[in-house]
């Protein structure tokens, strides 16, 4: 490494090569109107693509589209009212034969009211839910930050009721609750402004899958092989 820059390595060399390749001494002030972390200059990019490919203001149609796209990628989808939710969650875990279920902080207590499996929390009596411990946990129950109808995507951002990223990764069965219409957006362009880049995010579209054998999609490698989504219509 460059002794002048113990962690930077060849920083100045690479930057000077870039400037030489672009044929100028350095970025001029006109090239960087934001000069730091303000909004970037966006003038050269034509953004005449669609904000969404379906009407964004029809909540029932969006919920149906989300449902279809989730099913298309092999998620198991259930629908209910808020009043029916606790019993449905209990029944899904029973049907799976789950003895333990990991729950994140901030999960609405009502969601586990009818759960017969043992609910495990990171600050619970059994100690922190490490990856090794989660490897022996049957299921995990979470909410989400939002869902994208056009792509059948759930976005988790480690917020309340979602927890750390490994929680929804190590157990083999994930139940994710989506509250409609509030959490359902039409498209990727409508999702990004609602998400905070400072939070770690996992976008989930169906259960773990691979296309690595003959380019044919097969469900189930390292993430949860069963993804159940509960769409709750408020």
């Amino acid at each position: 490494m460059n002794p002048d820059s113990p962690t930077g390595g060849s920083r100045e060399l690479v930057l000077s090569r870039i400037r030489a390749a672009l044929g100028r001494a350095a970025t001029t002030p006109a090239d960087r109107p934001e000069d730091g972390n303000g909004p970037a200059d966006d003038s050269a990019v034509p953004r005449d693509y669609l904000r969404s490919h379906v009407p964004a203001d029809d909540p029932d149609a969006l919920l149906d589209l989300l449902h279809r796209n989730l099913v298309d990628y092999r998620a198991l989808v259930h629908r209910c009212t808020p009043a029916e939710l606790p019993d449905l969650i209990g029944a899904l875990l029973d049907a799976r034969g789950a003895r333990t279920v990991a729950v994140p902080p901030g999960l609405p207590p009502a969601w586990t009211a009818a759960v017969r499996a043992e609910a495990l929390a990171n600050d619970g009596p059994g100690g922190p839910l490490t990856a090794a411990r989660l490897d022996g946990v049957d299921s995990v129950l979470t909410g989400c930050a939002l869902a994208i109808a056009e792509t059948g995507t759930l976005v988790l951002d480690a917020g309340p009721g979602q927890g750390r990223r490994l929680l929804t990764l190590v157990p083999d069965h994930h139940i994710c609750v989506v509250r409609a219409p509030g959490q359902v957006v039409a498209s990727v362009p409508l999702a990004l402004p609602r998400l905070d880049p400072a939070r770690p995010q996992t976008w989930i579209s169906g259960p773990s899958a691979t296309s690595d054998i003959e380019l044919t999609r097969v469900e189930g490698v390292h993430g949860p092989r069963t993804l159940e989504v509960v769409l709750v219509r408020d």
Partner: protein
Amino acid sequence: MSGTFLGLPAFPEAAAAAVQDERLRANLRHATGTIRAKRARAVAELADWAELRAAAKAVKDRTLDRLDHYLVRLEQNVTAAGGQVHWAADAEEANRIVTGLVRATGEREVVKVKSMATQEIGLNEALAEAGIRAYETDLAELIVQLGNDRPSHILVPAIHRNRGEIRDIFADRMADLGRPAPEGLTDEPAELAEAARLHLREKFLRAKVAVSGANFMIAETGTLVVVESEGNGRMCLTLPRTLISVVGIEKVLPTWRDLEIFLQLLPRSATAERMNPYTSLWTGTHADGPDGDGPEEFHLVLLDNGRTDVLADRTGRQALRCIRCSACLNVCPVYERAGGHAYGSVYPGPIGAILTPQLRGTETPLDASLPYASSLCGACYEVCPVAIDIPEVLVHLRERVADGPRHRLARAAAAAAAYVLDHPGLLRAAERAAARTRRLHPRRLPGPGRAWTDTRELPAVPPEPFRDWWRRNRG
């Protein structure tokens, strides 16, 4: 680039051998044929595909035009979020940085997310020399690693293997590197995936260090994005204590908002999905607090390794727009027949034919032959989600090769001719094109061919190819 590929034959020789391999051709025909049809359907779902493509091209071009600025901005924001940024001028320096970082943890093994950049620099070999074992965790990379094989596709490095071959590799080799394959393993893809799950789980759970690449880096926020399917990426990005990401400098995007373009284009172009199963986004470290999450240490190694040379070429620089989706491989008639290994680089197919000679130069016969590994049919340009005009760059690079020493031109031209002569369809197309443009032909060759025509008349091209005449009169 990686030493794995040194000393390989030039494209025409390697391709000539590959097209004789019936099994390889059948595997490739099956896999690329499947994905071609699916991709077309996935793209047709979006009425604004052309607009997304134009926007993607514009974002990438704008970024390249101010690359120094966006990299510095990225560095500031990654650092502010708790990450450390390192700059590597070449493969050797990148390997040295990563090896040093792993050594500093005291660990002797790392888990890896599939990454083109780390293959390009030969990181696994460099780590092995330092006594550090790198475990590939992507299913296809695992197949390649267990089989002591070379990758042949950007997205699906084991595309040249069918399910039966994969079964045999797992059954024979998994035991050497950890948990053996289950007894009685069949060639059912679901069973093969299960075998990989069991084999790798113990490695994920004990790994303290992970190495990844990234699909995108956001200058405005310092966010890195990894797009994947299996969950091995999530495992590597969240479970270990230390995460080291090696990323080419061209992967930076200016703003968070720019993801709205690329997260629509990439999954549909790559695996023909509306969205890939898992996308991870992280900004520095997130490990603080009682519910802190993920690695405590995050290192970003920004890699040049020839990219600034590509940037200096006004025509060739568009290759740096590439988002590694592989759509150009899947539609390429030459790739489908020759396979990925013939390109002698971790970047095969049309994009490899323009990227490799620019990153490595055109000094070796192999690299000088790559711009000729194409019939210029243009299918690659048509499917490219960032509108890289691959045929334009191929022709441009042919000029560069031709401007080199004359013997190299002759060899490359002969190689191209041999390839065309071996492929009647290409020959027919070339003959017809020549006949149709004959009134434009000069009496003397321009450029490097001039010396040859100083003492010779350039033969006139007949108005109609002989084979067409034969077909019309005798066929």
